[in-house]
């Protein structure tokens, strides 16, 4: 611990050096803009800016590039909440309650609570990085295929009732999401499945394409046909309306703390990044809520928890990347590559050999996050005013950026077509009363479940006992069984209870 603080003091020396500070500022501001604009992805921004850093000092380069990554998370929630456009996958789940809040004229409150969630989540993530980085190996290494598989199973079970309305519909959508995730190359055999001869499908669908299609475009198709343009009309813009009230805070704080913990745990398990973290956080929040029926209709917990989880996972994600040299996702892989271009090898000796990099980065996280909050809180009012732009201008513009953004993820037109296809499909689902959210859950968790299930069986030479032989995995399996049992018990009790009027039909 003491070593951590001495290191951090050194880190602040590095990060506050004026030219490092300036690059950190540039990074978070660019990141923030990238997050807000539907058309830009973090990955493409960093890879575009990477060549610029060749002539920079490695520390400054890293501070700037990572600033883009966590800065983007601050902006990422804005389109999700205000326009139902999840341009950044970790914030997709924020749409579920964030957009209804906007429709109720509480978009500013949602953004406010997002900021609070962001800073608390990030602070925890950074603190964890300071304290845990040297011990990361012993924690992360407890999660083998069996544990990850069991965890994903738990996540899917807990999340299958993610959506509002009929549980059967929710579960079927989860399964459909898993089905969609099967398209692409099977890691275990190398075979292509459900690609129908399209090389573009060999790595499966892009998550961005699915989430933007199912949420953003489907919502657009629904709204252009409806008479009233909900969300644009009843926006109150007084300063008071933009600030979460005391009641909001009281309601939002516990979910923020829970989300933070879930996010930081997920970030420690390599390959389980912010997106998975935010879904699990939302699912858990709804599961433990006394009033799960409010979720999906603008429950503030449904915004607070996944947002906190995303931010803590984003910061925590740096731990395995820096201290193990194992990137958690594509952005981290790129940052790792950037370090290597600067002749720095991340790995267990990074903290000792390159204290400037490691502690400078951590100190810059503190500085960067504070800059972001200071920048964003006054901006909330401006973002909300965005909704005053007439729908006929706002939405086509947003769609235009969406198409560019989807294209830029992989430079493939195919993904743009897929987005539009999913949009049409999502519209159909909405008309039939199916909620699209569980599709994303299945799509995100399903492949990790399958991959690790088969890997575990490969290692155990086919013995299923492997899942209960190992303590952590046994615990997850145990909770899953309890969850299922509780579900069945509740269903049975409901069947015996007197029949209620079918209120949900008017949903």
């Amino acid at each position, binding site marked *: 611990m003491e070593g951590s603080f001495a290191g951090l003091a050194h880190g602040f020396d590095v990060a506050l050096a004026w030219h490092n500070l300036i690059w950190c500022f540039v990074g978070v501001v660019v990141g923030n803009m990238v997050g807000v604009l539907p058309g830009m992805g973090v990955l493409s921004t960093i890879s575009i800016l990477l060549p610029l850093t060749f002539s920079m000092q490695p520390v400054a380069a890293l501070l700037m590039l990572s600033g883009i990554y966590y800065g983007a998370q601050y902006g990422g929630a804005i389109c999700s909440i205000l326009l139902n456009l999840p341009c950044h996958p970790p914030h997709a789940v924020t749409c579920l309650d964030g957009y209804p809040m906007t429709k109720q004229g509480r978009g500013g409150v949602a953004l406010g609570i997002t900021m609070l969630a962001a800073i608390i989540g990030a602070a925890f993530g950074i603190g964890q990085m300071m304290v845990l980085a040297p011990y990361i190996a012993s924690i992360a290494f407890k999660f083998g295929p069996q544990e990850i598989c069991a965890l994903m199973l738990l996540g899917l079970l807990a999340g299958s009732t993610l959506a509002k309305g009929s549980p059967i519909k929710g579960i079927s959508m989860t399964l459909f999401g898993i089905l969609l995730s099967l398209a692409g190359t099977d890691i275990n055999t190398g075979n292509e499945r459900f690609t129908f001869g399209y090389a573009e499908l060999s*790595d499966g669908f892009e998550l961005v394409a699915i989430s933007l299609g199912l949420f953003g475009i489907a919502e657009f198709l629904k709204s252009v046909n409806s008479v009233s343009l909900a969300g644009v009309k009843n926006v109150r813009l007084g300063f008071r309306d933009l600030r979460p009230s005391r009641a909001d805070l009281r309601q939002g704080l516990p979910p923020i703390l829970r989300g933070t913990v879930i996010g930081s745990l997920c970030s420690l398990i390599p390959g389980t990044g912010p997106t998975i973290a935010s879904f699990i956080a939302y699912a858990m929040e709804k599961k433990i809520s006394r009033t799960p029926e409010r979720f999906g209709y603008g429950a503030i917990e449904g915004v607070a928890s996944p947002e906190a989880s995303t931010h803590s996972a984003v910061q925590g994600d740096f731990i395995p990347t820096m201290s193990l040299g194992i990137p958690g996702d594509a952005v981290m892989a790129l940052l790792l590559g950037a370090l290597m271009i600067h002749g720095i090898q991340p790995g267990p000796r990074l903290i000792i050999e390159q204290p400037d990099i490691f502690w400078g980065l951590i100190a810059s996280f503190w500085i960067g996050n504070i800059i972001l909050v200071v920048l964003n809180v006054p901006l909330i009012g401006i973002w909300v005013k965005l909704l005053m732009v007439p729908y006929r201008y706002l939405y086509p513009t947003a769609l235009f950026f969406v198409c560019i953004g989807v294209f830029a993820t992989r430079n493939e037109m195919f993904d743009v077509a897929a987005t539009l296809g999913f949009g049409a499909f999502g519209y159909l689902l909405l008309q039939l009363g199916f909620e699209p959210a569980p599709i994303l859950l299945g799509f995100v968790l399903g492949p990790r479940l399958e991959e690790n299930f088969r890997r575990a069986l490969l290692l155990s030479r086919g013995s299923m006992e492997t899942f209960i032989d190992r303590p952590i995995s046994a615990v997850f399996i145990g909770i899953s069984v309890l969850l299922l049992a509780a579900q069945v018990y509740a269903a049975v009790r409901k069947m015996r209870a007197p029949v209620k009027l079918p209120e949900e039909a008017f949903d």
Partner: protein
Amino acid sequence: MIGNFTRREALLTAAGLIVVRSARAAGYPERPVKIVVPFAPGGPSDIMARVMAGYLSSRTGGSFVVENHGGAGGNIGAGVAARATPDGYTLLIHSSPLVVNPSLYKKVPYDITKDFAPLVELGTSPNVFVANPAFGIKSIADLVARAKADPKSISYASGGIGTPAHLSGELLKLKEGIEMTHVPYASGGLGMQAVLQNTTPVAALSLPPALPMIKAGQLVALAVTGKTRWPELPQTPTMVEAGYPGFVTDNFQVFLAPAKTPQAIVDLLVKTTLEILHDPKIAQQLLADGFEVIANGPAGLQKRIDDDVPMWRDLIEKSGLEKV
């Protein structure tokens, strides 16, 4: 119209074309040159391409930009480059999947014999066999002895089906007639993690990402698969030294243009690239990034491709991998 074409006009037109072509090469590059990398940003080819793009831009005064076209194990990007207009404004930096995939996939969107004009073999990184220290082995011989003593007991991880590292593991199995269960991961990093956490006791990996862990003593390097030992691991023998003549598998990084790219542009690119690679400072930088500089010109690269395609094909067939 064509019937009325006189011989003189034809000659003039041809001469005109030649003038246009050489003028193009003289002014090359007049607009940004796209270097296609058929993988996501951050991988070895991407790093190599970005380093090269930087130096090519500064030396030619043009602008070389990297464009990632990931997917299908590198096939999509290679196909994009193969179909691009051969005007010198679309180039390709690819690695070993270029020569592995034609034997691994039922169909690839390029013809390795026809679609590319080789420029330079830039650099190469070997693969490495590593073990978890707790497994208590120090050499390939130890590994083989363990595998023979208790057949089917050993699993080895890799960064995915058909990667040169995986195929190196299969090659070892073939040479020794041993059984080891292959456990593929989605990336080399995750494969490395599997052996770090002792999910599998051994792994076959691309060397550069594993190097810090080897140096930190968290992984034991059994042997590297390069022609020579790796400069930073002087103690670790090559597979050839470990008693397997001809066991050389590596991950090369190659620079290609679409076939029929004007010769003048090809010459210019080759000359500039070789100059860059011969700069000792740059070679040192690339070594730190995990690449041993090769700097093999068009003829050498063509031979390398001609040799490697059948080499991988044989290995894939013998190891019984199904085409995907």
